[in-house]
């Protein structure tokens, strides 16, 4: 029994580590992405809650309610899981082979040869980070008016909205944007749970961090100096996301792998050039 199982697992492992599987998965992922584009374009609203309610609750409610539009997403998850397995198997297999011949290289060359495998593993780490983010992150929404405060969930700290410090368009080349806020900035006073206070500026793609939460600017009003009379406010999204560390670690690891790989690549190219030169000489002689 054990004898018959072992070859099966060997074949399975080889299939998982196969470059052909990688190509098939990449093609399927591309096709699925095209399908996904059409679905998102047709029904954007279905996917908006995925950003704040998490993967499992979304799949049980919004995802299930419109299978025609969400099926591509579930297929994407399956394909990504397979690609991750494929990458892991492929990388471990190559690492095993590399380890077996490690004595043939100097330490520097060996590290250089590890570079691509480190990059592959870092991609897995980034994917894992996203999975953690979509399954474990907690998200809360809040609205702040100038001069008012908002407590972070679990008494992790307090945010006080001091004032706007927007940058508005003052040029004359584009009359449409005259007076329009082009770089929103809200000044906040952050009070940590231990009582320490600091100032911070919040903007789009410029979150602030406090007590393990990241605070993001979602929306603000008014957007124009002569706007529609909307009251000044900022809409906030507060996230406690364990995935962030994982994908930052993945990015750092990727950079390390790239740093190791590039010198190795240069050495390889130099090596190829030195092998080509005599060949060119030979061709010349033949002429």
């Amino acid at each position, binding site marked *: 029994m054990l004898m018959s199982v072992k070859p099966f697992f060997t074949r399975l492992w080889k299939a998982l580590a196969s470059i052909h599987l990688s190509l098939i998965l990449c093609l399927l992922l591309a096709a699925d992405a095209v399908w996904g584009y059409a679905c998102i374009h047709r029904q954007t609203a*279905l996917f908006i809650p995925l950003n704040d309610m998490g993967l499992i609750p979304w799949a049980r409610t919004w995802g299930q309610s*419109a299978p025609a539009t969400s099926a591509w997403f579930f297929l994407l998850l399956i394909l990504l899981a397979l690609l991750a397995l494929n990458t892991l198997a492929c990388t471990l297999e190559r690492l095993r082979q590399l380890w077996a011949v490690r004595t043939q290289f100097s330490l520097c060359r060996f590290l250089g040869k590890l570079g691509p495998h480190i990059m592959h593993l870092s991609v897995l780490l980034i994917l894992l980070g996203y999975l953690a983010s979509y399954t474990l992150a907690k998200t809360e929404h809040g609205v702040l008016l100038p001069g008012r405060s908002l407590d972070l969930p679990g008494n992790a700290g307090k945010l006080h909205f001091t004032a706007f410090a927007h940058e508005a368009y003052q040029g004359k080349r584009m009359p449409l944007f005259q007076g329009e806020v082009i770089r929103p900035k809200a000044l906040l006073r952050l009070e940590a749970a231990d009582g320490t206070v600091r100032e911070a500026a919040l903007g789009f793609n410029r979150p602030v961090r406090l007590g393990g939460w990241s605070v993001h600017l979602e929306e603000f009003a008014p957007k124009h100096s002569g706007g529609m009379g909307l009251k000044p406010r900022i809409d906030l999204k507060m996230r406690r996301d364990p995935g962030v560390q994982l994908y930052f670690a993945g990015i750092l690891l990727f950079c390390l792998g790239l740093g190791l790989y590039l010198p190795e690549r240069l050495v390889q190219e130099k090596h190829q050039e030195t092998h080509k030169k005599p060949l060119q000489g030979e061709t010349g002689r033949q002429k």
Partner: protein
Amino acid sequence: MSQKMHKTRRNPVLQAFFSLLCCLALTLGASGCKQENGKAENAAPVSGARPAFLQIGEFSVHRVSDTHTEVRDGAGRTLTLIPHNAPLPPGCDPKRVVRTPVKRVAAYGYFDVATLRVLGVLHEVLVGVTVPEKEWAGCATDIAQAMKEGRIAYLGDSTSIDYERVKQVEPDLVLTWDPSSLPLLDDLNIPAVITSTPQATCLNAKMRYVQFLAPFFGKESQADAYFARVDAALADIRARTVAAPKKPKVMWGDIYEKRVLVEPGNAWVGELVGLAQSNYQFKDVFGTSCIEIAVERFLYSGEDADIYFTYRGKKSGATSKAAIARTNPLIRNIAPLRSKEGRVYVPAACYLQSMDKLDEVLTEIAAILHPELYPQHQLRYFEQLPDEDPPKNEPPKTAATAGGVSR
């Protein structure tokens, strides 16, 4: 090379993987197509039972149990609906709990008031509005009367609400489009629902919005009946216009001091125009309702448009094509204003307050787009503008009084 190919063909595990994925993709795709073609939605009641989850654009209603419903409002906040005296579900924020059926409501928007009317609870629950009494008179006279008698309070203009007054009327729930009111309502311990969404409301969400508010009042069957009525009107529009001889080009928007605001293609009007075999000139514009676009884009779309719907009504000076061109010289050359064949429509005085008759509004828009298919239709919610203002001693003559939609 041939050896390699031979090797690939013989890999049974890889083949099994590929076959499995293809089967999965085909099954999912097929099930998706089936749902799409059959218009089957999870939202539709299955064998008489109410669905557990209903998506209404960016809103949702999730029936967790018979006594526990979770709704997601336009700002992405989750509110818990539980009956009066029922214990709070574990882990639920008390500030986001609404006891049902709701008995006292303050509403900011016309559409929310109209929805309360659809649900048949308007006179029982509405205690505050942000539109003064004179604005209701002539259209929703019952509300004007209730305000006169003090049963419905005026809470101040929506941009400057009198929160002392709100506190006095003690609403159990506030329906508001304005997120900036949330912190102040939180201070008063009054739960609020944000009824606007970051993206424009699509046609399906516009029709189903009543099903979002229904669980607050336990009026789900009224909401389902209303949706069925509007859906039937839409089916009729689709059937009537399918063989329309011409596809008119339509634009919907307005210009305010050089700033052009239009309804984007993802808004319900954009979808309706497309569904009624017409071309919406801003169908490529995506975003929020009343989205701002460049004047040049508006002028470009207006070059060959046939029909133009404005936001402003006659009260705001849109009394004729010539009057609009005079007020906004920038757009005077768009085809609907410039040519004799071009048609311009403004919302009638009661348009905004008539959204409880959405089926009639949708039909009227279809009748405007294809007057030849609706020869007997009398305009009620829109008015067609004449080329010039009538002389002051002559009564104004519109298409509605002229006995139908003019071409």
